[in-house]
């Protein structure tokens, strides 16, 4: 029996490794399907609740307590209004799209409240950050060195072109369908590292890190913590969302 214990030690180590490998394989980034379902679920609930409550509120002043009865007219719309209010105009096209440029580079685009940010990256040396606005369904973004992005949002699809210098590249992108960010950026405190990553819906990452002004392929981010180590320096990436300083 005693002679077996080293084998048992090896076996338990192997078993532990197997469990951890399995858990790691399942520790994929938040699946867009789950997020999509979560986002879709409240939507049907809202319309259902509102029609029920409105008749009740209208009928209640006679039957129910009179003091709330005076208010229903006012509070009832607000619950339905927040659900509907992001819809009008520009906010209707909020979302995240990922796709490809002609020539192979990857593009990701995020739109929030009429502001947009896009990142074009080939995973080796090319990276362009673009920021701008959405007017209706028209995208107008610009980036460093005169880079321009124009495009049209058509529901789940975005198509357009990116212009850098005199080169034009058409692109198409499809909605990720989830709320998880697709764009991550990491900047080290000493500014020597500036990394950008596109995290596709299936968890694939495409990234470029600019190290002292030289672009190199980015090491993958650890999706549990959005950290990675670039040449011995730990950097933490944060999701990029279009902010008020869109022009910056």
């Amino acid at each position: 029996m005693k002679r077996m214990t080293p084998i048992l030690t090896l076996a338990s180590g192997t078993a532990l490794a197997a469990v951890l490998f399995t858990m790691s394989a399942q520790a994929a980034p938040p699946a867009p399907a789950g997020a999509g379902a979560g986002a879709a679920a409240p939507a049907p609930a809202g319309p259902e609740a509102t029609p029920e409550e409105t008749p009740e509120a209208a009928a209640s002043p006679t039957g129910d307590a009179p003091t709330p009865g005076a208010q229903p007219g006012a509070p009832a719309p607000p619950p339905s209004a927040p659900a509907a209010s992001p819809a009008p105009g520009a906010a209707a096209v909020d979302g995240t799209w990922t796709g490809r440029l002609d020539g192979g580079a990857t593009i990701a685009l995020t739109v929030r409240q009429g502001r947009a940010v896009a990142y074009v990256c080939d995973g080796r040396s090319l990276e362009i950050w673009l920021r701008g606005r959405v007017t209706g369904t028209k995208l107008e973004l610009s980036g460093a060195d005169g880079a321009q992005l124009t495009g049209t949002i058509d529901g789940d699809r975005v198509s357009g072109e990116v212009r850098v210098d005199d080169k034009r590249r058409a692109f198409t992108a499809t909605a990720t369908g989830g709320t998880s960010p697709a764009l991550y950026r990491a900047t080290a405190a000493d500014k020597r590292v500036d990394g950008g990553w596109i995290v596709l819906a299936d968890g694939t990452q495409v990234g470029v890190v600019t190290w002292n002004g030289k672009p190199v392929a980015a090491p993958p981010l650890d999706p549990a913590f959005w950290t990675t180590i670039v040449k011995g320096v730990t950097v933490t990436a944060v999701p990029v969302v279009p902010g008020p300083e869109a022009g910056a």
Partner: protein
Amino acid sequence: MAEHRQGGTHALPDLDDEPDVQVLPDPFADPPAAGPRASIVLPLLVGAAVAVALGAYGRTHTPTGIAVNVAGFSGPQTVKVWLGSGAAFFAVVQLLSALAMWGRLGPVPPALAGFAHRWSGRVAFLLAVPVAVHCLYALGFADHDLRTLTHSAAGCFFFGAFTTKMLALPRRGLAGWVLPVVGGVVFTVLMLVWLTSSVWYFTTFGFQR
């Protein structure tokens, strides 16, 4: 085979259904060992296979960056740094208890030394496994610089050497130097792995802040 059979025909009746297992002694075989001396060759081969397999896996598999989230730590680096340091601590216990088992630390009860040696080894190994899983799965075999290359190679070698040690332990009649040498290699390599990761992290962390 035919020659053997010819040579043996006049000694053994040629029975077709009798398996030809009792062949004459092979003149080219090594002379039988002077005692019940077991071989370290098989453990060495298995250990080498483990080390090469880990390295090949880490090299060929695309690093996913995906890792298990261990609660209570600020990030994957700190998890690994502390687990690795724990393994290094128990490795020192290993060295001390091994010295005690061989009577180099004065009158320590052998049973106590053996108990401490077995359990510190198990704990150290089980602490090292999650670190290795994260390294291999999320980062892969890396050679960005001398440190990462040393760390990657030594990390693969450690698990190979540990496998050799575990497989050698149950073998009776090994030469007396085998276990101390293999154990010493395991300890040295683990220290190398630890120096190129946790200690490096602590010093870098200090400089960065």
